[in-house]
């Protein structure tokens, strides 16, 4: 039994089948990747797992630490120890980075919050009192989100397209943080279509057309993804049998 179990989850949105009998076990303390082309259903699955509004009317069962999540709202799931990092995190006019992080931090002391900013490469002197608003670059905003996640110290983190909109240096910093979290025993799920991100994972689930078409260690998935999915001209319609063989 993993920390998170997704059991035959299906979801239709506006009459269209987005997820089709998706099952997966997520192992505690490991880094997992849910990988696949655009439109494969990866982010939808993450939204379903996290219980975002509009994504709770699904079939199948999701359990976290053996507790069924289906009836729980987004914040109730978060308080169980799960969190979600958006591909493009929201901006907040007037809300300081310090207050944003402190709002959900286990240790709300200035010292602790500054330490988390340091961990993600943001100088607390320069950033703690800046607003989480449009004046931050995409990379800075993602680092703030990571600092906030570090301060929350959750058991499981879903990171949606963590490499989206950031430069190489920021991506390297993000990978460092993923290593820190893994060393602490945090379970991480990376939602991605990037080979660089996939390489950070221990295990991977290859999704296409709303289905999981392969589950394996990341090093076994990487060659298939690299050779078949990345050049695939029909990104959402691969040959499922070929992938499974």
């Amino acid at each position, binding site marked *: 039994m993993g920390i998170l179990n997704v059991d035959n989850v299906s979801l239709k949105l506006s009459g269209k089948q987005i997820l089709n009998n998706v099952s997966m076990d997520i192992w505690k303390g490991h880094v997992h990747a849910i990988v696949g082309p655009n439109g494969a259903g990866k982010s939808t699955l993450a939204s379903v797992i996290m219980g975002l509004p509009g994504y709770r009317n699904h079939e199948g069962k999701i359990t976290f630490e053996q507790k069924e999540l289906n009836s729980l709202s*987004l*914040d109730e799931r978060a*308080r169980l120890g799960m969190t979600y990092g958006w591909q493009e995190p929201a901006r*907040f006019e007037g*809300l300081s980075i310090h207050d944003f992080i402190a*709002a959900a931090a286990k240790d709300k002391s200035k010292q602790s919050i500054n330490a988390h900013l340091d961990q993600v490469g943001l100088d607390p002197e320069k950033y703690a009192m800046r607003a989480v608003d449009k004046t931050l670059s995409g990379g800075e905003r993602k680092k703030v989100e990571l600092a906030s996640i570090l301060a929350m110290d959750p058991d499981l983190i879903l990171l949606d397209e963590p490499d989206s909109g950031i430069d190489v240096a920021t991506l390297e910093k993000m990978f460092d943080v993923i290593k820190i979290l893994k060393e602490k025993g945090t379970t991480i799920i990376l939602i991605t279509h990037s080979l660089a991100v996939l390489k950070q994972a221990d295990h991977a689930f290859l999704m296409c057309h709303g289905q999981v078409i392969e589950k394996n260690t990341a090093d076994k998935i990487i060659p298939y993804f690299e050779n078949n999915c990345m050049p695939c001209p029909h990104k959402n319609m691969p040959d499922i049998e070929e992938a499974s063989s």
Partner: protein
Amino acid sequence: MSVPTDLTSELTKTAKIEDILTNPDVAHLIIHHHKVTSSHLLPGLEVQTKEAEDHIDIIVRLKENTILEKPVHMCFGMLPKDGVQKLNMDIVIGKNASIDILAHCTFPNGVSIDHIMDAKIVIEEGAKYSYFERHIHGDLGGVNVYPTAHIDLKKKSHFYSEFELLKGRAGLIDINYSVDCDDDSILEMLARINAKGDDVVKINEIGNLNGERSRGVLNSRVACRDNAKAEVKSVITASGSYARGHVDCTEIVQDNASVNAVPIVTVNNPKAHITHEAALGSVDSKQLQTLMAHGLTEEEATDLIIQGLLS
């Protein structure tokens, strides 16, 4: 009316500015009802007051080239639960002078209070006048606030005003400001109000960008909950060549509250330019979900978003 004997102490304690009374480097003026209870001036700053039964006249003059490094604290208020405070203000900021005023309007026990301010302000060429007005009200919602001001901005002068009511009930806030801007002058006005219960907020701000290269920004941030109502009318007219104006209204509506925002922008000169943006409605869903994914309840997340917006 029962009034505590040490009015200055009570007012400044409520406004959390007791330390200014003993600081010789900081000018202050404390007025309870229509009576000056304490004042301290600095060179270049002249204040004359005339107390009457039903109002107080306040004449403020800042001499040319006087730069006051530290903010001047003005505390206007009433400690009883009812009454009327009417302030008639006549302010002239001399050429190239600069002053920051922190006004603490303090009505902690108000049940039926009218706070009326009628101000005429002239900011001479090259001068800078900043007026931050913080309201401290109780939770009873019985304070009616009527600030009316006409500001005359001369060449290259700068006027900044901020109206803040974040704690306690707004009651009725009825702001009427109009500003005439000469060449190269700068106008900035911001209102930040947290309204709840059956509070009513009316903001009527007018900026006339008459001068060449004059610039003006009218900002409002109002959060309305429960049955509160807000009407925000922001008017900018650009007549001067190269005048630039902007209106920005962001108002949050919760529960049974309602907000009506009317930006009116007029350009009378093809070389002038005005923009406006308005966002009215509930809290942004992505902001809400981001904070809820961090474990905050919807109510906690909403409070934090509003706190940020009004900060």
